[in-house]
């Protein structure tokens, strides 16, 4: 069964190839079937292989398809490596991917470039699977760049609007900055180990580098650079909100569920190197904590439904980074999975709303959709509850609670990280329910054209169910001893040691987290649903609040900062040098020669006696020189 491994990425690639070559001439139904079907079959194969994996419990399956190239002992293969970590990712990618593909068939039904959309989506799924299944870092890099390309293509899907193209380019270039760091990390790894095979590196690294060695820290930071770029973390987070220019299913698949978590995957995959570099671990945790706060605050102020979700995605990935940074590997991955469910759900719901309102994304133009779109409302509510981590019933609670707990009690955790995460959870609850209240309650402002069809609703319901039950496979220690997920990952990812002194009081912190979430929801209710009291109004209208809101709204000014620091100087430099300053040196040389020619041609007077004179003067000169001692 594991011999079918190669089919998992190959099928979406094949689908993409067929769609690129013949898509324009195919009927729409066939395009949709081909697009969704190839991913669906991949998902089925994943289930089969996953089932076998779970029952046989090997450490990993490896399948080499062919040797990519072989130079001077550098022999990366096109080879796939499936272990528990990959399995989780592959499962999410294929399964959520399949649901989103199905949903897209409905969502994109009116689009002209139907085939192009599905071709890119399939290409994306293929690349993403390549990324998570890669057996060596170079192949991982292939997938890594491949998803970047698809992200570019899909963000700029509606290419006629130059702003979309700009957003797409921004996404590609900023992630590419991170990729460059990662590439340099690969150079160092290759130089040190003579291979890029992940397992080989991971097994040799502890022997080569002592804990905290300079090289290990350097490599870890470089890899972190790549991860930060891809996952939209500080300081390379600015592309992700703009990436919402793409169609909503794209945002759901690429910019929420899968691609942006590639950074999480990379760090988890190379966990050994990060364990060797405590400084890098700390950096991961701090980046995660700061990002989740900054992005959360920004999400509070946005009005574009998709932008709120985008900032929320950044914030949630911040949680994952925090988890990885404190060494709670499996908690990070668990949150990734749950996040993929509920964030995809939220995006798809948002898509359903947007399409029902004729591509209206501004929340201020929505309202009262509870009655018009009941299915969407309920599924959205489930997703929102999961995002806000409402206690006990939602999957989000279980995954986020783990992170909060390890941020405090894990051996690398400390109270500051915990506080950041806790505040983040509070903010999350506020902005999530702000969204719910503004969108679904109040009075209707835009006419709803038609409710979503079955093709769109079914994926919503499936994802909604997953957003609730997904959390029950891994319960907190004090609830019950059910740790299916971390048991699965245990061979790949090291466990985490818990500080025993505070281990006893776990239930207290759970209560605190739950309380914070509920208070957040209540605050949102006060400000955005109920009529505001004068006091609340005065807070909301105060000049300080306005200034903060403006600052947060602009994403903490990062865009502007980068614009002045990097973009403008580069463009300025490029433009002043458009005609190539070096060329002017040569042109100057030519001009000099021409002017000399002009001067010398003056001596060609045509008067013979002048020439004779020249001869005489020359003769005198030569004679004089020869006579001089």
């Amino acid at each position, binding site marked *: 069964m594991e011999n079918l491994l190669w089919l998992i990425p190959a099928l979406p690639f094949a689908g993409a190839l067929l769609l690129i070559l013949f898509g324009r001439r195919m009927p729409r139904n066939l395009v949709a079937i081909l697009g969704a079907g190839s991913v669906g079959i991949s998902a089925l194969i994943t289930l089969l292989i996953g089932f076998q994996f779970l029952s046989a419990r090997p450490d990993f399956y490896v399948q080499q398809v062919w040797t990519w190239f072989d130079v001077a002992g550098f022999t990366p293969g096109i080879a796939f490596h499936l272990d528990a970590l990959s399995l989780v990712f592959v499962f999410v990618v294929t399964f959520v991917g399949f649901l989103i593909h199905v949903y897209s068939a409905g969502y994109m039904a009116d689009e002209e470039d139907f085939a192009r959309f599905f071709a890119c989506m399939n290409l994306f799924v293929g690349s993403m699977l390549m990324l998570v299944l890669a057996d060596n870092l170079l192949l991982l890099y292939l997938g*890594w760049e491949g998803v970047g390309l698809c992200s570019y293509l899909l963000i700029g899907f509606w290419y006629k609007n130059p702003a979309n193209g700009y957003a797409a380019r921004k996404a590609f270039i900023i992630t590419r900055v991170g990729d460059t760091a990662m590439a340099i990390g690969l150079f160092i790894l290759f130089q040190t180990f003579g291979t890029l095979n992940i397992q080989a590196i991971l097994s040799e690294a502890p022997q080569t580098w002592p804990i905290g060695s300079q090289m290990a820290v350097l490599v870890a930071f470089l890899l972190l650079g790549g991860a930060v770029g891809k996952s939209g973390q500080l300081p390379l987070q600015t592309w992700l909100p703009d990436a919402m220019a793409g169609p909503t299913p794209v945002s759901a698949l690429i910019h929420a569920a899968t691609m942006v978590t590639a950074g999480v995957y990379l760090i988890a995959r190379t966990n050994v190197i990060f364990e060797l570099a405590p400084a890098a671990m700390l950096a991961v945790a701090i980046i995660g904590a700061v990002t989740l706060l900054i992005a959360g605050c920004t999400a509070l102020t946005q009005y574009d439904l998709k932008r709120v979700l985008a900032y929320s995605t950044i914030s949630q990935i911040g949680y994952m980074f925090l988890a990885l940074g404190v060494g709670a590997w499996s908690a990070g991955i668990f949150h990734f999975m749950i996040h993929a469910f509920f964030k995809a759900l939220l995006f798809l719901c948002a898509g359903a709303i947007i399409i029902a309102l004729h591509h209206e994304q501004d929340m201020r133009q929505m309202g009262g959709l509870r009655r018009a779109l009941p299915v969407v409302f309920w599924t959205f509510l489930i997703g929102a509850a999961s995002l806000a981590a409402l206690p006990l019933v939602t999957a989000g609670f279980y995954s986020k609670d783990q992170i909060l707990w390890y941020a405090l009690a894990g051996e690398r955790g400390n109270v500051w990280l915990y506080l950041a995460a806790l505040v983040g959870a509070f903010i999350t609850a506020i902005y999530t329910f702000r969204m719910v209240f503004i969108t679904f309650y109040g009075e209707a402002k835009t006419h709803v054209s038609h409710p979503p069809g079955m093709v769109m609703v079914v994926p919503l319901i499936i994802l909604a169910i997953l957003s609730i039950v997904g959390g029950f496979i891994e319960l907190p220690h004090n609830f019950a001893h059910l740790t299916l997920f971390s048991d699965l990952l245990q061979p790949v990812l090291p466990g985490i040691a818990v500080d025993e002194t505070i281990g006893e009081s776990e239930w207290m912190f759970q209560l605190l987290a739950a309380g914070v979430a509920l208070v957040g929801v209540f605050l949102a209710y006060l400000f955005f649903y109920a009529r505001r009291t004068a006091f609340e109004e005065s807070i909301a209208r105060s000049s300080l609040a306005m200034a903060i809101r403006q600052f947060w709204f602009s994403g903490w000014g990062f865009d502007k900062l980068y614009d002045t620091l990097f973009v403008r100087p580069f463009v300025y430099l490029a433009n002043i040098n458009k005609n190539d300053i070096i060329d002017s040196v040569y042109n100057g040389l030519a001009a000099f020669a021409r002017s000399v020619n002009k001067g010398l041609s003056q001596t060609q007077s045509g008067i013979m006696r002048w020439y004779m004179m020249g001869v005489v003067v020359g003769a005198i000169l030569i004679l004089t020189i020869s006579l001089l001692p």
Partner: protein
Amino acid sequence: MILAWILIILMAGGVLAWIAGRLNTTLPRWIALVATFACLCMTVYLWIELPASTDAVGNWIMRFQTPWIPQWGISFHLALDGLSLLMLLLTFFLGILAILTSWREIDTKVGFFHFNLLWVLAGISGVFLTMDLFLFYFFWEVMLIPMYFLIGIWGHENRTYAAYKFFIFTQASGLLMLLSILGLYFVHGYSTGVYTFNYFELVGTSFAPEVGALLMAGFLAAFLVKLPVVPFHSWLPDAHSQAPTAGSVILAGLLLKTGAYGLLRFVIPMFPDAAQAFAPWAMLLGVIGILYGAILAFSQTDLKRLVAYTSVSHMGFVILGVFAFNELALQGVIMQMITHGLSTGALFLLAGFLYDRLHTRDIRKMGGFWTSVPKMGVIALVFVMASLGLPGLGNFIAEFLTLVGSWQANNWLTVFATLGLVAATAYSLRIMQKIFLGNTANHPALADLSLRELMIAVPLVVLILWLGLYPQPVLNTARASVTEQLQAYTNPKVAEPAQAMLQTEASDSLTIHTLKGRTYEPK
């Protein structure tokens, strides 16, 4: 003999095409196509029959030598190894594309055009094949003059200026190389008493350090200008943008590669000490080239000029890799030569297709073409991605290998070179954005690629993908040559003279090898 036939076919074909041009305008095209195709077939045949030569010793697949001017030690000496073979394949492949793309574009002096085209190809093949330095210089000039005509007669509006500039830059640097060749000839003659232009004998010459540096400078002048490396690059944008499409393809795809080939074949093995001393500067030039070319490319509005500056940027990787002196980097360089030939050639072809339809190269007048020409868009996307080094396409392998190799030689320069990838992203995506994406208003609807144009573009796509996913055949072919060029660097102390003598007697094919079995004392 088959090597000589390649040159004869091309040259005779050229003359024939010229004559045929007086009768008919289609005949020269067919003659040129058939001649180039015949050469391609021969080379492919050689490649398939290659396996015997991939082992470490039998590096040279075949040789052809006949005296030309024996008094001065000049012979008509051709030899083929993996590197030459790959370059020849590229030459004839791009040659065919160049002829195909001129099918509609060129309608004046058709016969003379194809004469020039074939003679340029002949000159380039000669450069890749010849193992006699005098003959090398001869072919170096042969490829120059027809190219001058190609630009000067069939070029765009500013063609005379561009043609002059091209000619002066390359000719002046070529003369410096001639001086060095003569210097080498005499230095070798003085020290051994054998006056010869034979590469295999000259390659063993040892010099005083200053002499070596001076002679190398002459060779470098020619190769760096041709490559081009940054302070000497200024002929390239003009020549590339003014040349007809076929000319641009050949310039970017092949002519630049002769510079890289020269570095690999002559500079590296002949002047190991001087090259090592020069290496940090050369790598610095490479890095400057990468970044400078990228910044310039970003600001251009003339499509062909833009692509030309991307060539400057990409060729920076070549010199970076060449002077890293390790197998990874050199393999990367060879890959870069091939994949850059394909990808940049393809971009020029696309520029040609667009010029055909719009009669402008100004990207400010383009935009939103994806709607009307999706096929062209997809193909352009592939090559734009190749140009920014997307994994899965050939250029990635090239750049990655080069960078991995150069990392071992110099960390900081490699870091800056890697930053070039970001800049590459910026300018590459700009091509896509300005031409195919964006608003369609006030732009005419275009006709999508015709069958002929698809025949040109699709093989390029297939090849670049193939090179990206399974480059091993190419790497295998080049491996023996690469190790040979690097012999002076990898094992400086071995190769005892006595051992070399033994080997000399063993067989003729081994003779060549042992000529380089000299000792270089590491400093």
